[in-house]
């Protein structure tokens, strides 16, 4: 395996609706910022990969024009996934492992504001059995939370604690959409939104984008004093039908974590892509993270959840904290699909 590291990260200030600029205009400044952070010009980038979704944009081939923000001229080696940008990092990492790139740039963006996100995401479901019912992701998450609460896997108090901690952490994150101090008791006195979920159990609806730059071996050492080395990387998927899954746990996260070697050494912090409070509890358990592990110091997806991007942000946030010495070993996680159907786990380490 080649040594590959995240050497630069940039993100937008996430907002409920970015209505004055388009995707290209949203990406351009942070592409520049990420390249500057890596100390390279775009001509040194060997491979570019991006993550976004046509359904979110409401436009087929929506990713095509976003490439203009990078300026792919002369022609570049480039690919795109209709997945969270964390998987675009995976594709870039694979390309680097295959010896076809030394420096790669990955970006992702998601604007949920153009459409009705709950309706849009219902189009993710089995088109024959579930699609016609227009079940939305919040309702499915509520169903998962109910199963967990009934089974005693977690409590409403624990869920509220997750929300309070996330917002408290986000106070130090200038890019977060939500932050502040919230008392658990006050949160629990709020009415239910989609029972048993309260508003604080659900993510905000966000528009945002993010960019990371990856470098391998010598290039990483040349360009960064403290690269965040990728020491384990895997992703797994579970059945689509919720009835055939145990919703109180995350089997695919456990599988990916085992493959990525999460448990091999102590973990200092974890950035978990948990859009719902109970999902953070499920993920902490599936990853085997002990109480001392700092969870979502950025505030996580509960404080800014740009679709197709929130997973990539977890990787960038974790990498930043390895680079600045806050952590020597961090876990970044990304998820896709209803009720944590698909999960990606990345282990980042300093020297």
């Amino acid at each position: 395996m080649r040594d590959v590291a995240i050497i630069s990260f940039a993100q937008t200030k996430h907002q409920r609706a970015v209505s004055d600029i388009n995707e290209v205009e949203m990406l351009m400044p942070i592409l520049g910022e990420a390249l500057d952070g890596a100390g390279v010009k775009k001509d040194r980038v060997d491979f570019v990969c991006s993550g976004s979704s046509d359904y979110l944009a409401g436009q087929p081939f929506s990713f095509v024009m976003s490439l203009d923000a990078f300026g792919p001229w002369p022609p570049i080696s480039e690919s795109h996934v209709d997945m969270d940008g964390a998987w675009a990092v995976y594709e870039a990492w694979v390309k680097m492992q295959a010896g076809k790139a030394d420096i790669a740039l990955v970006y992702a963006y998601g604007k949920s504001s153009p459409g009705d996100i709950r309706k849009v995401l219902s189009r993710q479901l089995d088109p024959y059995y579930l699609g016609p019912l227009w079940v939305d992701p919040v309702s499915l998450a509520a169903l998962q939370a109910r199963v967990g609460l009934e089974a005693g896997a977690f409590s409403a108090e624990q869920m509220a604690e997750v929300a309070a901690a996330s917002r408290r952490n986000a106070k130090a994150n200038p890019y977060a959409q939500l932050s502040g101090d919230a008392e658990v008791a006050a949160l629990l006195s709020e009415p239910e939104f989609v029972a048993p979920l309260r508003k604080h159990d659900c993510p905000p609806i966000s528009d945002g984008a993010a960019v990371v730059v990856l470098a391998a071996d010598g290039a990483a050492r040349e360009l960064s004093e403290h690269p965040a080395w990728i020491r384990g990387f895997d992703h797994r998927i579970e059945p689509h039908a919720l009835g055939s899954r145990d919703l109180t746990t995350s089997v695919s996260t456990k599988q990916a974590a085992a493959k990525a070697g999460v448990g091999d050494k102590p973990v200092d912090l974890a950035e978990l892509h948990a859009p719902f409070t109970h999902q953070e509890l499920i993920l902490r358990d599936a990853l085997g993270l002990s109480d001392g592990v700092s969870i979502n110091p950025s505030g996580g997806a509960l404080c800014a959840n740009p679709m197709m991007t929130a997973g990539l942000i977890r990787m960038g946030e974790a990498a930043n904290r390895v680079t600045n010495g806050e952590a020597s070993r961090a876990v970044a996680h990304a998820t896709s699909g209803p009720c944590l159907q698909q999960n990606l786990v990345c282990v980042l380490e300093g020297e």
Partner: protein
Amino acid sequence: MMGSERVAIVGTGQTKHQATNDGSIAGVVRQAAERALEDAQMSWADIDAVVIGKAPDFFEGVMMPELYLADALGAVGKPMFRVHTAGSVGGSTAIVAQDLVAAGIHERVLTVAFEKQSESEAMWALSVSMPFQPPMHAGAGGYFAPHIRSYIRRTGAPDHIGILVALKDRLNALKNPYAHLHEHEITFDSVKESMMLWDPIRYSETCPSSDGACALVITNEKGGDAAASDGRPPAWVKGTALRSEPTMFAGRDQVNPRGGQECAWDVYKQAGIAHPRDEIDCVEMYVPFSWFEPMWLENLHFAGVGEGWKMVESGATQLDGDLPVNMSGGVLSSNPIGASGMLRFAEAAMQVRGQAGEHQVDGVRTALGHAYGGGSQFFAMWIVGAEKP
């Protein structure tokens, strides 16, 4: 930057491409996958990871369908990856799968690409109009017809070149049981007399709308050697390359895009090819409108600039010519969009494996698979060979 594992294609599979496939989306992708596994003499349990590609989700009306297809493709408990790079996606998807093996991450990867255009209104899905952009007046043909006109203006190519390509591809398709169009009565005159849809593109010079899927089983050197010693020759990957350039920019050459030229030289260099016309035995390229064959012959360096049409006219690209092109009948005979790029890659592999049946070209040692997408700004290519690199 070298040091990657050798990669072999040991199984290919595809559905019978047709206007409307009665199977479910899951059924269609699974059929192609099962055929590829059977060809590779493997079972679902042998597969380490699944890589799936398709064009816009609006074509089937299912967002991120890999989530729903995880069960049908035996991906539960495994990594499942979804690629989308416009029309070149079938090629880009195969390249991601080959990279997973080349990198030594997995030993056996199943890759699948599909489209079920009948599930939704493809014309509608392609033309969701942006209120603040110039109105698109004519669909895909209307987009590409001006480029073809520019090619004709530049090269002085006579009108019948497009007809020759369409006739050749549709006749080749008669030898391919999986091809969508089987036009037994087709003649030069019937193509010529078919309706001029987007002048200079005639109806019979246009690809159909198809439902279909394609799958490949890709393994490492050990897997390739095992297949070979079992009398099932693999196709060895000798090079892969991707290129993208902006969709529109001042002075962009859409007839002979620089991205395609550079992608081709990149893949040839990896395969140790200096003279593609002499060293490549056959080519399966992405030709959705007949005139793209002469254009791509130039773009891929098989003919000099302005000479591609002469190569077509000479018969060189016929099944019995010295550089057969689109032996399967090509995109002009079957176009399940998301799968079309992978079908080109699969045909290249089938030819070097000697598995192409009636449309097999004798003695193929080296073949090029080519895909492009968007407005000719995305390219994916691979070279496969009978000999281990």
